[in-house]
């Protein structure tokens, strides 16, 4: 593995603009895009949101698409951003090139499912939205991959793209994420009581929650390209392994992600010129991220801001939306202001009020997700020295143990590992996954793996179906947070991390029947690079057939390197 990863194009749509130029202008004018709902239909009209100022129909028109069936907003937003990125990179024809399109999303096709009140499809085939983006942008021959690590999905997509280029698996990568607003996750976040009824105030002492936003952003990545606008210098994915929806007070996952990204980039913390924080504006996140910043940077905190008071929290797309904002800041020499901030958190970090005429050589972008999926990316303006990495032979990767759980009779065995208090909220899918993971680890004589990877075509089908049915039946009122908190695709990988105390690499793939193949590819790479000695891969899916049964299967496999 070697070479430098160049960024040659970027495309973006979010609440403050439908393209790069509009987004740049709004950032420089310090104009927020958060306001009352115009396009999303919900009873919660008092919740401000950051919407893209285009209807799905207008986006389809811009792409020249017609359809008799509803098209996911995820796909059309994503396609517009991919198209802008490819144009900037000067790529018109990809014939003969090995191309990967990697997208982060969690809403996936849920925005369409939730409109079908009668018999909505079960589960959420996130991979379908990525396939559609490829189809709408002339990339039908591309390898499509979808990452679902909640709010860090798009940042992990960019990292995977960089890894595939460095390993010479592809010639061209388009990576990022797309997340529209949906009634589903607006209600989900509402049950968690973390939505501010006013504009969010990241890192402010009076902060009272986040505003949801929608966004799509993609970057074009190529190896050693002459037309590079910036470089991907370092990155890391770590896990807080603390709680499904809460962050640890010490910011452990965030601390580990930033520290490892700096190490990979080969630079000290003092080199960072600007940090685009995750900074959602929730009391929890900002306190935890603040603690992590103080651990990494000490008293020498570089200029830092959260741009979520402009765009809203674009959840799964936040990583790429904010990477593009970082690139715009580097190109135009400014630090985006932390809009709406005025009261410092006692003993906390102070965000930047913005400045222009600065030179940003190294920029850090943070994205943290539910379940503690924490990632950090470092961009460089100038070409870094090539990093070499020796890979172990693929033939050395072996399976240490494997375990399948697929029926109700096995589930009581979970009592061997967890108390009734710990399992009380878990559905059968979650129980089956945890039991298969514990059994596989036990068989291999291991307490915890170094990394955890999950693969699923349709995610947490039973809980997400129940939550959607509740939204419809109760008209968006009195919904259960317990259902929402375990309805995202990354629930399983995070739950295994929490229960085994694994702070290492943690990711979830959802690309239809290809999901497990992507997971195994990643497990092998981690082992061959020497970044992990043991990797647990958990593949799971479930169905609820009309006969009232519940079919499910979880398979956990522990991969390791053969000792010579």
């Amino acid at each position, binding site marked *: 593995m070697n070479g430098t990863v160049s960024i040659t194009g970027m495309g973006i749509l979010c609440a403050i603009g439908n393209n790069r130029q509009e987004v740049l202008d709004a950032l420089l004018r310090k104009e927020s895009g958060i306001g009352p709902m115009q396009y999303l239909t919900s009873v919660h009209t008092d919740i401000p949101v950051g919407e893209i100022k285009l209807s799905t129909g207008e986006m389809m028109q811009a792409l020249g698409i017609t359809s008799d069936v509803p098209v996911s907003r995820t796909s059309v937003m994503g396609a517009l951003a991919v198209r802008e990125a490819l144009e900037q990179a000067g790529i018109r024809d990809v014939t003969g090139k090995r191309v990967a399109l990697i997208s982060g999303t969690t809403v996936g096709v849920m925005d369409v499912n939730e409109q079908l009140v009668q018999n909505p499809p079960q589960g959420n085939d996130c991979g379908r939205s990525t396939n559609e983006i490829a189809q709408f942008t002339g990339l039908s021959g591309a390898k499509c991959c979808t990452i679902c690590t909640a709010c860090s999905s798009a940042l992990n997509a960019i990292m995977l793209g960089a890894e595939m280029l460095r390993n010479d698996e592809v010639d061209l990568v388009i990576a990022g994420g797309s997340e529209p607003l949906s009634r589903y996750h607006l209600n989900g976040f509402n*049950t*968690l*009581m973390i939505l501010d009824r006013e504009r969010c105030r990241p890192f402010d002492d009076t902060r*009272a929650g986040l505003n949801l936003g929608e966004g799509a952003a993609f970057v074009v990545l190529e190896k050693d390209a002459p037309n590079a606008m910036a470089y991907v210098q370092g990155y890391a994915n770590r896990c807080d392994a603390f*709680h*499904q*929806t*809460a962050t640890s007070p010490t910011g452990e996952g965030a601390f580990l992600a930033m520290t490892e990204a700096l190490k990979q980039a080969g630079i000290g913390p003092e080199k960072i010129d600007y940090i685009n924080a995750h900074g959602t504006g929730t009391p929890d996140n900002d306190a935890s991220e603040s603690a992590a910043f103080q651990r990494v940077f000490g008293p020498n905190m570089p200029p830092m801001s959260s741009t979520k008071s402009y765009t809203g929290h674009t959840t799964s797309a936040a990583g790429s939306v904010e990477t593009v904002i970082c690139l715009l800041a580097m190109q135009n020499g400014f630090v985006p202001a932390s809009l709406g901030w005025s009261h410092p958190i006692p003993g906390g970090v102070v965000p930047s009020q913005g400045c222009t005429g600065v030179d940003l050589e190294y920029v850090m972008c943070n994205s943290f997700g539910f379940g503690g999926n924490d990632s950090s990316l470092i961009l460089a303006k100038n070409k870094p020295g090539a990093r070499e990495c020796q890979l172990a032979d693929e033939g050395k990767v072996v399976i240490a143990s494997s375990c399948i759980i697929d029926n109700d009779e096995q589930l009581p065995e979970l009592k061997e590992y967890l108390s*009734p*208090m710990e399992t*009380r*909220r878990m559905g059968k899918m979650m129980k089956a996954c945890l039991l298969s993971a514990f059994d596989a680890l036990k068989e291999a004589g291991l307490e915890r793996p170094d990394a955890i990877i999950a693969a699923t075509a349709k995610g947490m089908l039973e809980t997400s179906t129940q939550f959607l049915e509740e939204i419809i039946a109760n008209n968006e009122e*009195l*919904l*259960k*947070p*317990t259902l929402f*908190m375990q309805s995202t695709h990354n629930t399983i990988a995070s739950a295994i991390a929490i229960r085994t105390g694994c702070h290492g690499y943690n990711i979830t793939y959802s690309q239809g029947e290809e999901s497990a193949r992507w997971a195994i590819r990643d497990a092998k790479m981690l082992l061959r690079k020497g970044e992990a000695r043991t990797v647990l891969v958990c593949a799971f899916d479930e169905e609820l057939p009309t006969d009232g049964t519940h079919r499910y299967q979880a398979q956990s496999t522990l991969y390791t390197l053969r000792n010579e």
Partner: protein
Amino acid sequence: MEELINNLKLQIIDALNLEEMTPDQIDNDAPLFGEGLGLDSIDALELIVILDKHYGIKLKSPAEGKTVFKSINCIADYIEKNRTK
């Protein structure tokens, strides 16, 4: 009050999936969070839904719930004073 407390416990057992518990196993004065029953932040949100759904009481934030949710007796007192249904 006794009836209210019993109903409340049944609602809590149901909403919080405390499947293996019966109302008399929950001490009226014991702390619900941390050392006592061991509930967490998601449970606090579920308790807020119970207050809204069964008693017509709307809490604005989990922080407001902190004093209310100290024990079963505290919740019952709060319900008596503030219920709208």
